[in-house]
C-alpha cells in the first residue's frame, strides 16, 4: 500500500535582496496511513514552514521552489487553486499552536464549525450543519455541546478552544491532520487530555497525523515515526523506538541529553552549545558541525546525505553510527 503522504525533495524558499533563502531545503518524508509522524526540532529549523508548504499556505514572499508533495499519489503542488482549496480541510486539515487566537472572536464557535463544513459541502441545510457541528463538538468531548454551540471563543478556556479547533479540523473527515505544536500553549494536564483525544480520534477515524513539536516527551508518547529536523533538513529519521533507543545523529543525542530525567542522577543537563544558524548564514559542510562535539575535519567539507544506518533508520552524519564515533573521540 502506498503511504498516505510522500514528500520528495521539498524546498521552500523566501525571496530576499541577497537571493533566495531556503527555510526548508530538500526534505524527504513519508507519512504512513493511520500512523503518526512526529517532526522535532528547535525553533527556526523549518518544521512549521514544512507543514505550511504541504498546505500550500506559505506566506509571501515565500514559495515552494522544488519537490513534490504526493497525497495518495497526487502531487498537491501541481493542483489548481480550486482543487487545492478542496484538499485543505477536506483531505488535509491543520490545527495550530495558539488556540486563543485561532478562532475568530466575533462569531460563535458553532457558526465557525458550520462555516468550515459549508466550505466543502455547500448544499447542506443549516439545520443539518448545526446537528453535525454539535455532534463534532460532542466527539471532541465538549460537555453540553448544544449550549456551547452558541458561545463565543472568549467564553471558553484554552483547552476547550483547542478542542473546538480539533472539531473544526475534523469536521470534514480529513485523511491527514497536521498538528503544529498543538499543546505548546496549554497547561500540562490539559496537554495530556488533548493528546489523549487526538490518539482516540485517530483510532476512530484511521487518519494520519503529522505532529510538529519541540517537545520530545510529546513525540515519545504520540509518534510512530520521528523525523528530527535541523536548519531546514532532516537530520535523522527512524521509528520512535529506534530513535529514542539508539539515536544516531549527534543533534538528536543533544536534544535527548537536554531533557530532564527522573531515572538518572545527573548534575547538569547536556545543552547543545549555540543556536540554530539562520537560513541566510549556514555554515559550509554539515550544518550542525559548529555545534557538534564529534565534528572532524571532513564535516566542514561536504553536506552528509541522509543514509540508512540500519533498515528504516536514517541519519545524515558521516560519523554515524555514533557508538564508533564516541570511541574515536579522545
Amino acid at each position: 500500500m502506498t503511504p498516505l503522504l510522500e514528500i520528495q525533495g521539498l524546498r521552500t524558499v523566501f525571496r530576499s535582496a541577497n537571493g533566495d533563502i531556503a527555510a526548508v531545503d530538500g526534505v524527504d518524508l513519508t507519512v504512513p496511513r493511520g500512523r503518526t509522524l512526529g517532526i522535532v526540532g528547535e525553533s527556526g529549523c523549518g518544521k512549521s514552514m514544512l507543514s505550511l508548504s504541504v498546505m500550500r499556505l506559505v506566506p509571501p514572499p515565500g514559495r515552494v521552489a522544488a519537490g513534490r508533495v504526493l497525497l495518495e499519489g497526487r502531487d498537491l503542488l501541481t493542483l489548481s487553486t480550486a482543487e487545492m482549496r478542496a484538499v485543505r480541510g477536506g483531505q488535509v486539515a491543520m490545527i495550530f499552536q495558539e488556540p486563543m487566537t485561532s478562532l475568530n472572536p466575533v462569531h460563535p464557535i458553532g457558526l465557525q464549525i458550520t462555516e468550515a463544513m459549508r466550505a466543502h459541502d455547500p448544499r447542506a441545510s443549516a439545520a443539518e450543519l448545526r446537528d453535525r457541528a454539535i455532534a463534532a463538538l460532542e466527539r471532541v468531548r465538549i460537555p453540553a455541546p448544544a449550549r456551547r454551540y452558541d458561545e463565543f471563543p472568549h467564553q471558553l478556556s484554552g483547552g476547550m478552544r483547542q478542542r473546538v479547533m480539533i472539531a473544526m479540523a475534523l469536521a470534514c473527515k480529513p485523511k491527514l491532520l497536521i498538528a503544529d505544536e498543538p499543546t505548546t500553549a496549554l497547561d500540562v494536564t490539559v496537554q495530556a487530555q488533548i493528546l489523549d483525544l487526538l490518539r482516540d480520534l485517530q483510532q476512530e477515524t484511521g487518519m494520519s497525523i503529522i505532529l510538529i513539536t519541540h517537545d520530545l516527551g510529546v513525540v515519545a508518547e504520540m509518534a510512530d515515526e520521528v523525523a528530527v529536523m535541523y536548519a531546514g533538513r532532516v537530520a535523522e529519521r527512524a521509528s520512535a523506538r529506534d530513535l529514542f533507543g539508539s539515536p544516531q545523529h549527534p543533534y538528536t543525542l543533544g536534544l535527548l541529553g537536554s531533557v530532564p530525567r527522573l531515572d538518572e542522577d545527573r548534575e547538569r543537563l547536556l545543552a547543545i552549545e549555540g543556536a540554530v544558524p539562520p537560513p541566510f548564514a549556514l555554515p559550509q559542510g554539515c550544518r550542525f558541525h559548529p555545534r557538534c562535539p564529534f565534528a572532524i575535519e571532513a564535516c566542514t567539507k561536504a553536506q552528509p546525505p541522509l543514509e540508512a544506518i540500519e533498515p528504516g533508520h536514517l541519519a545524515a552524519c558521516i560519523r554515524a553510527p555514533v557508538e564508533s564515533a564516541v570511541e574515536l573521540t579522545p
Partner: protein
Amino acid sequence: MSGVQPPARPSTLRVLLREPAAAVSAALVAITVLAALLAPWLAPYDPYETDLMAIMQPPGGAYLLGTDGQGRDMLSRLLYGLRVTLTMGALSLGFGGVLGVLIGFCAAYYRRVDGLLMRLADIMLSFPAILFGLAIAAIAGPGVTAVVIALSVATVPLMARIARSTALVVLGLDYIEAARAQGMGDARLIWRHLMPNCLSPILVFATLRFGQVILLGSALSFLGLGAQAPIAELGAMAAQGRTFLFFAPHISVIPSVAIFVIVLAFNVLGDALRDALDPRLRV
C-alpha cells in the same frame, strides 16, 4: 465544566445605551432622522411659501423658529433642510464608503494590486474635496448631485486606506490562516472573517466622516456649488442668513446649530458603537 450557566450575553443595543452620552446621542440621531423622514407631516408651513408681510421674524409667536429673509417659516425649512443634508451625507458616505472598503480589502488581500491601488488613492488624496466639487459642478452643473459625486469621490481614498490598514492587521491573525487551512474561499473568507473584524474602525471612521461630509456638503452649498435656491439645505440656509447676521442672527444660527448637533451626535454615537460592537468588551 459544571452545570453553571454562563451569564447571558447582553445585546449590542443595551451595551450601547448604558453609556449616558451615547444614549443622548442615539436619541438625538433618532429624533433628527425621524424629523427628516416625517418632515411633510411635521412642518407647520410649506417651506417654500414666502410671506413678505412677516420677514425676519424672531423665534416665537406664530412662526416657532421665526422666518427668514423672504418670510419663509424657519421650522419648516429646517425640517426639509435636514432631509436634503442627511440624504446628501448618507449617499456620499454610502457610495464612497462601499467603494473605498472594496478597494481597501482588495489592496490588502491581493497584494499584487496593492501598490497600484494605493498610489491611485494617494493621487486622489492630494486633491481637496472642495476642488472636486468645483470641477464636478463645472462639468455637471451645480446641484445636490454634484455634491454627492464630489464627496463620494473624496471619501473613497480615505475609506480605502482605513479598510486596507485594518484588513492588513486582521489578515495577519491566526484565525485567517486557520480559515484558509479549512479550504475557505476568498469571498467567504473576506465576508465572514475579514469584514466583521474590520468593522469597528470602519464604523468609527464612517461616523466621523459623516460629520465631515455634512460639513463639506454645507460648505459647497455655501459656495453656491451645492443645493440651489430655493431648495432648503442646512448649509445653503446658513449662507443665506449670513447677510442678516446682525439684524436676524437666528436665520444663520438655527441651521448652523443643527449641523453642529448632528455632527456631534454622530461622533459620540460612533465612538460608543465601537465599544459596544467589540465582543471582547462584553463581559
